[in-house]
């Protein structure tokens, strides 16, 4: 007869816990992954829990969590004073293996944590079994099944919504929106309340109710037709005007180019003049004021010419942990490095877009991804992209002929671009938002109707 393994051997894996913590003290990538996936209670050993908490806190505060930093933090809190604790910490810190698969150790820690929850489930249900009354068998089994289902889902924190739970959730959400709508109608005289982040255009706010957490927004434009201007206009609205933290990944422009663009956007001084430095002293003063707004904003920029989907995921997770960003803008997807050389262009785009959608959902972020339109205004792999995204916008200039021919454009003072809402999962689509794009100043705004 086979001998039973001791329970501790099955339920606890101290070595894996040490490997994860050691990884966190030595590698930023390990820190990002562990902070993202693990929780304090996933560690069995109380000392390991404390180390995990302190290390995660240091990382969130943007302090590199070295062994020395960990001890500094701990000693200030009067922790880890005993020789046994120091010896365990020393063991953890020194057994880091470069290039080791941290994902493997994290999954082992997570699995043992789930097994411990399973053990609690078994004990708890055994207790219930011992106390059962004849008439409550169905209820007992139903409760056990529900509990077990939650344990077996991939993410143990996800729960299956029973019909009453979902109905309550739906009703509460509608009621919340109704109350807020009423309140804002009274306070702001009919301005529609946003569910997500401001788009920077009143008309687009009305249609979309803002860029919502978990949304993937695809913005397409032909080369030179304002992709980056649109991205930075969004960034201005989110990070500068509303001071919400966001991350901007640019695959084309240098740090200096991005910084100079802001000078023009925030001051209203023509970009060419900013670039050449041909400025009057009052323009210089306006530009300085503009940069002062940028200084106090939530705009985090990461220019990265050789961006890959993996790097995008990693850097976004890092900023989510450290800066609690609410939005990611990727400018633009066509310049991302290929993951698989023998894939067709549309397959690569599809993979990237899927990655971004998962990122949006997993991190509860609004993700905006800029793509390039073909000369005929179509989008490569458009159907697949459209399937994945929640909102698809196309930025298209209006020609002089169109302006002269179409009556709708004559109702606006300064319209020269339209944002086509090609797909809108939560609302109306197939409509145009008319805007003005001042190319010289790189500024976008709603087109102003001519008052009758």
């Amino acid at each position: 007869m086979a001998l039973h393994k001791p329970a501790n051997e099955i339920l606890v894996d101290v070595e894996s816990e040490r490997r994860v913590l050691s990884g966190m003290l030595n590698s930023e990538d390990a820190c990002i992954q562990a902070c993202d996936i693990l929780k304090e209670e996933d560690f069995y050993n109380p000392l390991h829990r404390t180390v995990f908490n302190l290390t995660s806190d240091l990382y969130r505060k943007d302090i590199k969590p070295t062994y020395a930093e960990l001890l500094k933090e701990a000693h200030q809190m009067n922790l880890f004073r005993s020789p046994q604790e120091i010896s365990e910490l020393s063991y953890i810190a020194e057994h880091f293996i470069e290039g080791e698969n941290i994902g493997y150790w994290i999954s082992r820690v997570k699995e043992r944590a789930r097994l411990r929850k399973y053990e609690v489930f078994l004990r708890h249900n055994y207790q219930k079994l011992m106390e059962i009354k004849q008439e409550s068998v169905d209820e007992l089994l139903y409760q056990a099944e529900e509990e077990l289902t939650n344990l077996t889902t991939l993410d143990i924190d996800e729960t299956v919504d029973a019909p009453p739970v979902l109905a309550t959730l739906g009703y509460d959400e509608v009621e919340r929106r109704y109350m807020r709508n009423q309140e804002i109608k009274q306070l702001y005289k009919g301005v529609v309340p946003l569910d997500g982040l401001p788009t920077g255009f009143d008309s687009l706010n009305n249609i979309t109710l803002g860029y919502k957490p978990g949304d993937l927004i695809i913005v397409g434009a032909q080369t030179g037709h304002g992709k980056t201007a649109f991205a930075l206009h969004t960034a201005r609205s989110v990070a500068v005007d509303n001071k919400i933290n966001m991350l901007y990944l640019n695959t084309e422009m240098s740090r200096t180019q991005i910084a100079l663009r802001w000078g023009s956007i925030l001051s209203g001084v023509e970009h060419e003049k900013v670039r050449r430095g041909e400025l009057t002293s009052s323009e210089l003063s306006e530009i300085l004021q503009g940069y002062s707004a940028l200084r106090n904003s939530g705009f985090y920029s990461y220019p990265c010419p050789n961006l890959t989907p993996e790097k995008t995921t990693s850097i976004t997770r890092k900023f989510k942990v450290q800066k609690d960003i609410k939005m990611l803008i990727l400018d633009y997807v066509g310049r991302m490095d290929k993951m698989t050389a023998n894939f067709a262009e549309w397959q690569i785009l599809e993979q990237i877009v899927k990655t971004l959608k998962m990122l949006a959902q997993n991190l509860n972020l609004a993700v905006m991804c800029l793509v390039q339109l073909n000369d005929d205004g179509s989008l490569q792999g458009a159907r697949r992209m459209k399937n994945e995204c929640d909102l698809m916008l196309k930025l298209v200039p209006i020609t002089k002929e169109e302006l002269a021919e179409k009556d709708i454009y004559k109702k606006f003072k300064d319209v020269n671009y339209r944002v086509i809402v090609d797909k809108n999962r939560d609302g109306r689509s197939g409509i145009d938002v008319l805007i003005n794009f001042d190319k010289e100043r790189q500024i976008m705004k709603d087109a102003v109707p001519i008052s009758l």
Partner: protein
Amino acid sequence: MIIRRKDLASKAYQDLVAMIAALPAKGVISEAEELVLFDILDLVVKQNDADLAHVLADFLAEENAPDTSEVDEIVKATLMSSQLKDQKQRDVLINLVSDLTKEKKRLLEQG
């Protein structure tokens, strides 16, 4: 399970951290001094910035004498009150320690 150590530098770092961590309990250094030592260690090992460590080593290489005790106190007090993670404060500290090392040499030569 096979345990491999990353390299000797890493091992030396872990040992030094453990050693420094044990010193306050033995009454050899204060907790504030412990924090400064951790900062210097991280600067050298984790950030590969040995400038401060070099000037401190130069300073310590000079022998101590009653005449130089005041200079020693100034260096220690400045070190303890500086934010070593701040590059600007570190640069100021490096200049100060360099100047005071010269002063210490001068005092020793005079004495």
